[in-house]
């Protein structure tokens, strides 16, 4: 049963390590999609590239 942290499965120090791990996955996936590129990020506002919208919609669909 989750969330695991609230039910005492691990302590605060471990939660910070987990934060680092989840952060690495988060940053890795964002860069994979091209979100490390400022021009690609803003291009949705010039109706050129809709990658930002596609990622956002699909992510909301699954979580």
């Amino acid at each position, binding site marked *: 049963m989750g969330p695991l*942290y609230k039910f005492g499965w691990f302590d605060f120090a471990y*939660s910070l390590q987990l*934060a680092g791990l989840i*952060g690495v996955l988060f940053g890795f*996936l964002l*860069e994979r999609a091209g979100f490390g590129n400022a*021009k690609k990020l803003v291009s949705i506002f010039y109706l050129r590239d809709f990658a930002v919208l596609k990622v956002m919609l699909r*992510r909301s669909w699954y979580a």
Partner: protein
Amino acid sequence: MKTRYANPYVIGTLLGLVLLFSFYTMGRGLGSSSSFARIAVAGVHLVAPEHAATNPYYAKYLGGGRSPLMAWLVFLTLGAGLGGLFSAFISNRVKGEIVRGPNIGAGARLWLALFGGILSGFAARLARGCTSGQALTGASELAFGSWVFMFCIFAGAYATAYFLRKEWL
């Protein structure tokens, strides 16, 4: 050789699963803006501890006898930087450059970026979240305020993007 960016639908799916994992293990979503607030609070606490302790905004980050930097989102943001760097590294995308349009010099572009950063940082604290905390996490929880936030972000950007097109693209 530069590799192409991944399919946005695949990345969106995987991001959703990372978010789900975060909810299951920690009961918390992903965000980033409050880690910058925490860095600011740690700085104020370092030079003016009395002021930090009496200011209600700063004080709420200072409880529990821990440094304001020993926090979930601070470590998440550090990890995100490392993960992004790793992804860029394996695709040969790591390089120093100032991304700018044809109509602006490098120095002016950096000042504009600083101004935009101050504006968005201030606004993110007013809105109690940035595009990560509000639009990513909040919208996935179907929080009404987060969806309002997201539409406002897009409305504001579409309204102003035209005027800055020569600085950007």
